């Protein structure tokens, strides 16, 4: 598969993601909604960036674009130097599998499936063999502190534990980018601290993280904060 090797073979580019003039319009004519207007945004390797904004500001739309879950109306998006617009559906699936690790507000674990099987899932789609898959999934679970919970199903885990399984699942393919969408939105204070601590550790270990939140406390942990307002993106004061 030439595409896969092309994606994996991308060399060290400075920016993990680089967005130029990105716009997204829903609908047409008078009813058209401009969710994103001419957004320029880039993230360096190893950076920990928070995207904040009111609900309806367009930050979720931005996340969908960055995660290759939705296509922009116009603009260019380079992920690891690769222009996403040129990829077909299958190639985009490969891209999501290798380069992006998703962490959702609602955890989005597959129900009735053990924590281990959930973490293994991206590796299955990556075509990794059974034994290697298991080793890597167990390693990812112990990284998030859940080594004893691999046989538990989502309904046997607390919210914080479920989100940590989701983080393990996002990490297991060693993607270039971790995309977290309101990762603490459904968690209590203790679990929030827990998961944010985990992000800090991942950041220290050199992972590139983009976290979307409306919570200033969460954003405060990031290196850099950008604000989305009415579909426009502005840089917040650097700390």
């Amino acid at each position, binding site marked *: 598969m030439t595409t896969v090797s092309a994606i994996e073979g991308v060399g060290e580019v400075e920016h993990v993601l680089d967005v130029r003039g990105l716009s997204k319009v829903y609908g047409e004519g008078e009813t058209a909604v401009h969710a994103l207007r001419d957004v320029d945004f880039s993230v360096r390797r190893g950076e920990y960036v928070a995207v904040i904004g009111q609900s309806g500001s367009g930050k979720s739309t931005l996340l*969908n674009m960055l*995660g290759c*879950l*939705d296509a922009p109306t116009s603009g260019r998006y380079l992920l690891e130097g690769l222009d996403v617009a040129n990829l077909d*559906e*299958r190639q985009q*699936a*490969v*891209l*999501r*599998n*290798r380069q992006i690790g*998703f962490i*959702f507000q609602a955890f*989005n*674990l*597959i*129900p*009735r*499936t053990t924590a281990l099987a959930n973490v293994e*899932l*991206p590796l*299955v*789609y*990556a*075509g990794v063999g059974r034994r290697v898959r298991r080793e890597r999934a167990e390693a990812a679970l112990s990284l998030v502190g859940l080594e004893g919970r691999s046989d538990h199903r989502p309904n046997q885990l607390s919210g914080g534990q479920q989100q940590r399984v989701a983080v393990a*699942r996002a990490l297991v*393919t060693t993607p270039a980018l971790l995309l977290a969408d309101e990762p603490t939105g459904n968690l209590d204070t203790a679990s929030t601290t827990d998961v944010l601590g985990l992000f800090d550790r991942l950041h220290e270990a050199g992972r590139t993280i983009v976290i979307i939140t409306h919570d200033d406390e969460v954003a405060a942990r990031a290196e850099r904060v950008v604000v989305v307002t009415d579909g426009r993106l502005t840089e917040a004061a650097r700390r």
Partner: protein
Amino acid sequence: MSIVEIVRFAVRGLIANRLRSLLTMLGIIIGIAAVILLTALGNGASVYIQSQIAGLGANSITVLPRQPPETAGTDGRPLTSADARALADPQGAPDVASVSPVVTLSATTAAGRATSDVTVVGSTPSYFSGANVQMGTGRFYTDADVEAGRKVVLLGRTAADDLFGVGSEPVGRDVLVDDVPFLVIGTLAPAGQGQGLSNPDENVLAPLTAVQGSLTGFGNLSQIVVQARSTEAQAAAESEINSILDRRHGIEQPDNRDYQVLSARQLADVLDDTLGAFTLLLAAIAAISLVVGGIGITNIMLVSVTERTREIGIRKALGAPPSAILGQFLVESIILSVVGGILGVAVGYAGTLVPLGDFRPVILPAAVVAAVAVSAAIGIFFGAYPARRAARLRPIDALRRE
């Protein structure tokens, strides 16, 4: 992403909804079981009738005179002893084992004051095997009896009962056949069935020469009974008879024949055709239930896709290509239909163990193979639409669903 993984996902999906999977399978189980059982019934009936026909007269072929159609422009020729001798020629008819010229007449037999209306059949000893005549008591007449024109007679069971009392043993007694005295040398076993021409229990059998000499005169034959060398040779024997008689009777068009050839084989063929059509009809009715079962699969798979839209979205976000999603749902429906098909064959087989009246259903191996193949095809055909729908879901729409 290997096939093994896709199958594992599919099996997990089915096990997660055990009851629903089973109920969906039920439609296929019933459809396949119905096909297996109904074709087995038709086939069983066919096997039963074949065995009944085989008992009528092994390898026997009857040649009868017949009025040719008016377009032939002739009244046709009767069957003669010369015709019978020609059929016995091993050069022209190598597949013929024996030829029995037959004359029949209706007559009244009398013994004392008792009388019985019978059909007198005059022939040669080969007739006994040719017409599958079973001996009751006494002896058959022999070639010597025929050559000498001895007036001896074998009584059918009904005739014997009428003349000498029920269950009597009349061997050695005299009977009058149309006022000509004959000596009873034996009785026939009760037959109950015949070749459809007459009731053999009402027949009395006598040497051809004796019947011709004292009752009918040395004229034309009523029929010629021919025996083929084997069941396999029957068709060949029939065509040899046709070509010999066509030549002797100067017939150019088969439609204009002044004789007809009847055999158990032909009867079997006709019945087989009828039963075949009947079996096909039953199978067609069963196939309808199979289609209904297939639509059930489509229905449930669509429900399943809708219900698991979010799961599909998650899988796509994690990098599942459309082919993997398509494969997972397609394999689910194929498993449903194939496992349902196999269970259906088992249920159908269990059903055939129940005997019905005189015959038992006999499973057609071809029906089993076809049933399993058809159920797999049903899984692909009726699962394709829901699976495509799942594969085409946009991840963003799928994830948004609660």
